[in-house]
């Protein structure tokens, strides 16, 4: 902000004596409005005259606030650096009060405080390693707690709030339908289009239907759906639970004897595991539809021919395999979303961090678990 020009002659006069004493006579006010300009002025005066003694005469000063006191602290420090002295004369009652209120006398030569230290690279490396270890440990603890709460839930099913499950199913499943449908449709469209360029060369247009349906039901459908759900819902879980954690809502649940895992985690896990497989089926359908649009409009295939080829290619096993995978993905997404929420502590920043981490970790786990599935399947199917 630029402040308007202030006529500084209203506020001070100075007098330099050959003996090395620079006296500054202050007038009227020394406060927020004029401090910044006066600091510049006095610093240049000191630089010009190089005094050994600096005296501030407060006789005509009517108003002083802590900005003025900060100016005196700065001047005293400057004189200290030059091995000179700084003193007041004619301190009036008001100035005395303000100076003592701001502890001018005990305010050390060192005017500022030490900045928060940034640790060196080795300390940070070590901290990160320890943090990583703790994170893994807390993941397993959380997993254990979730399992235990599952058992407790079977013992007393009334503890689970069905309304919460329904609400989460609505948020995770129903609200995601448009985006899952659109992305899958476009993905099917793109895949059919790209593969047709190659397959057309061999007159194998009809295999576009096989390629789209098989790759979408077995791999891309579950993965894409899981990534969308991770982006929408894992982040939402982490943010919701994280905010509850920092505003002591979870502590309140705990002290009421309500298991936060059953109250918050189970409804989310159950809801996600119920709706994600349905979302995957929906996604498969839309991807095939996307392929069909390309097949019929660009590859001279008939609707009937395309659908017959798709049905001949797909077995129920492929569809169920995709669905089964998606249940595992759903478990991972909801679990990691809730875990990150529970790990939030401190303030608003930690909720942000938890949300980011929920999305990143769940996408990572989705891809890792999918690779494991591929390997297992390789041996399973011989």
């Amino acid at each position, binding site marked *: *902000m*630029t*402040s308007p020009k202030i006529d500084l002659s209203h506020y001070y006069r100075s007098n330099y004596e050959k003996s090395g004493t620079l006296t500054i006579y202050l007038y009227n006010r020394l*406060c*927020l409005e004029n*401090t*910044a*300009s006066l*600091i510049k002025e006095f610093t240049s005066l000191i630089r010009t005259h190089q005094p050994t003694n600096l005296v501030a005469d407060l006789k005509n000063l009517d108003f002083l*606030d*802590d*900005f003025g*006191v*900060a*100016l005196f*602290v*700065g001047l005293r420090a400057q004189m200290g650096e030059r091995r000179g002295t700084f003193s007041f004369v004619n301190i009036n009652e008001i100035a005395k*009060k*303000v100076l003592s*209120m*701001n*502890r001018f006398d005990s*305010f050390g030569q060192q*005017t*500022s*405080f*030490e*900045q*928060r230290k940034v640790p060196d690279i080795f300390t940070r490396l070590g901290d990160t390693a320890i943090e990583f270890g703790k994170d893994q440990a807390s993941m397993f603890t959380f997993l254990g707690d979730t399992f235990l709460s599952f058992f407790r839930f079977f013992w007393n099913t009334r503890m689970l709030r069905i309304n919460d499950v329904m609400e989460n199913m609505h948020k995770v499943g129903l609200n995601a339908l448009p985006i899952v449908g659109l992305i899958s449709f476009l993905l099917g469209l793109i895949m059919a289009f790209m593969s047709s360029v190659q397959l057309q060369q061999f007159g194998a247009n009809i295999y576009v239907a096989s390629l789209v349906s098989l790759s979408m039901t077995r791999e891309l459908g579950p993965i894409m759906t899981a990534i969308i759900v991770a982006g929408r819902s894992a982040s939402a879980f982490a943010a919701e639970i994280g905010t509850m954690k920092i505003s002591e809502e979870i502590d309140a649940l705990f002290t009421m004897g309500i298991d936060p895992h059953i109250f918050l985690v189970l409804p989310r896990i159950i809801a996600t595991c119920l709706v994600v497989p349905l979302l995957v089926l929906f996604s498969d359908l839309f991807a095939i539809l996307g392929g069909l649009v390309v097949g019929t409009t660009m590859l001279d295939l008939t609707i009937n021919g395309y659908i017959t080829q798709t049905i001949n290619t797909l077995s129920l096993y492929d569809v169920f395999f995709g669905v089964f995978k998606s249940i595992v993905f759903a478990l991972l997404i909801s679990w990691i979303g809730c875990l990150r929420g529970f790990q939030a*502590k*401190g*303030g*608003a*920043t930690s909720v942000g961090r938890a949300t980011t981490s929920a999305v990143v970790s769940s996408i990572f786990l989705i891809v890792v678990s999918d690779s494991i599935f591929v390997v297992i399947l390789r041996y399973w199917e011989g």
Partner: protein
Amino acid sequence: MEPENITQSDNKPVAIKVRELVAGYDNEIVLNKVTFDVFQGEIFVILGSSGCGKSTLLKHLIGLIDPISGEIEIGGIKITGKDRRNLQKVFRKYGVLFQNSGLLSSMTLAENVALPLQQYTNLTDKYINTLVKMKLSLVNLSGFENHLPSEISGGMRKRAGLARALSLNPSILFFDEPSAGLDPVTSAELDRLIIHLNHTLGTTMVIVTHELPSIFTVAHRVIMLDKRIRGIIADGTPQYLRDHSQNPYVKQFFNREVEPLNL
């Protein structure tokens, strides 16, 4: 019911002027045609039981919400209705201590206090640091400059919030339930600080509270709001209202009377 003992201006300059303020949310009117003045250098307390609109009134005074109708002036500048853009001009005139302190959690206490100084002054970092240290020592938080808000207690957070509200030496300070969640000693210290600042800097204080001991220590004048009439039922010094008020609700409030239990 007319409010009793409306304080006359005595030609004192007005810091905050409220005229015919109608405030509320959606379809519910919380305050209906409230009119009062806060004079310069006054410690002014807004009283009332829960749900009477104390916090709503405060939110209107600091410009967070625009009223349904009516006018608010701060330091002679109108901030309501089509003059809401004037808010930019008055932001520097007042500081607010929020109930949960409102400190930015990603910044250290020093950075929090330095924020308005960096925004509104031309001072160099060295002087800003000196001032930050002074402000924090004023509220007895020396040595906590590098702590994050999450690393200190609730009472300390509140004091740090006060240091930030004080950073530009505003002419008006608003407090939302300053003693809520504080121990009696810290609360009394805060009261002393309020009186001290009022005395040395002449700061006008507007305090929303229902802590009776604190009211009798600090308040020059109180207004009491009531949800039954959606407005002011009493206006005067706390001692006067306690001893001479004829209004049953005011009496009940000051004497902490409740309906007897039928055990």
